[in-house]
């Protein structure tokens, strides 16, 4: 089965991930810009990072026959540094033009501070101005419900097209308002801290799947890119057809990301009887 990893932080992972993902059917990964585990002090560090994920990382993935795409943004944690954020935003449009850059992300909220909210608004405005897709991070654990509500309130006050916005890391307590507002909703599967492969399948069974995306966890912390495959096995184990699995784990990412013409991977139909 062909699989797309819609949210994957390749720079924190080894080539062995790429090799094993390729063996398991992954054909493309998308790498949003994220927090490095420490707060960066210089805009230039971000510029080099954006160059890494838009220029170098596609070559590393290609060694294993995997397409690599990226997103650029100042993540919510570092958005607390307003001066840094303003300068990075000033230089970001150059990277939106890169052939594998799909849009602005992951922006969003962490502690929902005024600076984070201002940065989220600035990122979304830039995306709309440059006709880009948006990937929005929602907070973890105890901050999640409040942060997701705040994200929706911020977006409701802006002139946005919900079709082009993906709100990520939803769980049982946040998925309904995201879908009700017309956005795409992403579930991120972590070994401990976010959604799990089984709970993700529960959500796939409970809600309309047309705007749902499933991501593995893949970063520098306790995470596992193969939570995505675990979820696929669980989905199939419950009796869902191969085509239904393809719709969720391959075609939905194609439908959302394909709104950017740089994404040229098309939805597929299996011929299994």
């Amino acid at each position, binding site marked *: 089965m062909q699989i797309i990893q819609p949210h994957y932080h390749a720079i924190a992972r080894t080539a062995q991930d790429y090799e094993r993902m390729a063996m398991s059917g992954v054909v493309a990964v998308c790498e949003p810009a994220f927090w490095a585990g420490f707060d960066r002090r210089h805009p230039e560090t971000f510029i080099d990072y954006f160059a890494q994920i838009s220029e170098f990382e596609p070559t590393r993935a290609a060694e294993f026959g995997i397409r690599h795409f990226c997103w650029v943004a100042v993540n919510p944690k570092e958005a607390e540094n307003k001066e840094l954020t303003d300068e990075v935003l000033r230089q970001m449009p150059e990277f939106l033009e890169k052939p594998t850059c799909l849009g602005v992300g992951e922006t969003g909220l962490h502690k929902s501070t005024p600076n984070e909210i201002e940065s989220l608004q600035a990122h979304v405005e830039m995306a709309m101005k440059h006709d880009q897709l948006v990937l929005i991070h929602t907070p973890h654990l105890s901050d999640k419900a409040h942060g997701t509500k705040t994200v929706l309130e911020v977006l409701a006050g802006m002139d946005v097209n919900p079709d082009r916005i993906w709100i990520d890391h939803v769980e049982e307590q946040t998925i309904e308002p995201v879908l009700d507002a017309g956005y795409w909703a992403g579930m991120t599967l972590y*070994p401990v*801290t976010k959604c*799990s492969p*089984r*709970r993700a399948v*529960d959500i796939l*069974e409970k809600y309309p799947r047309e705007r749902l995306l499933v991501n593995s966890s893949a970063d520098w912390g306790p995470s596992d890119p193969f939570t995505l495959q675990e979820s696929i096995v669980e989905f199939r184990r419950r009796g869902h057809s191969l085509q239904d699995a393809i719709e969720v784990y391959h075609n939905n990412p194609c439908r959302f990301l394909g709104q950017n013409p740089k994404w040229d991977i098309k939805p597929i139909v299996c011929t299994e009887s």
Partner: protein
Amino acid sequence: MLSPQKTLDSYYLEARRDLLEVAAMLDRYDEAVKREGAKAGDESKKDSLLQAMKLLSQPDHPQANRAEQLLVHFAKIP
């Protein structure tokens, strides 16, 4: 050996995850009942889990033997 605080701080998130999995499993069962319009013919496994949680929710376990008590409890389910 870990201090009381370190014990909670070290294992809270994993225990939270495990409880969420139990909650999701029970939700999955309820959804299946709704879908099919009938309960399982034998609900003893569900009842056993609910009883186990009742046991866990008791505040004091002076012998610190919850796991042992659960194993004895679960042994009643064939």
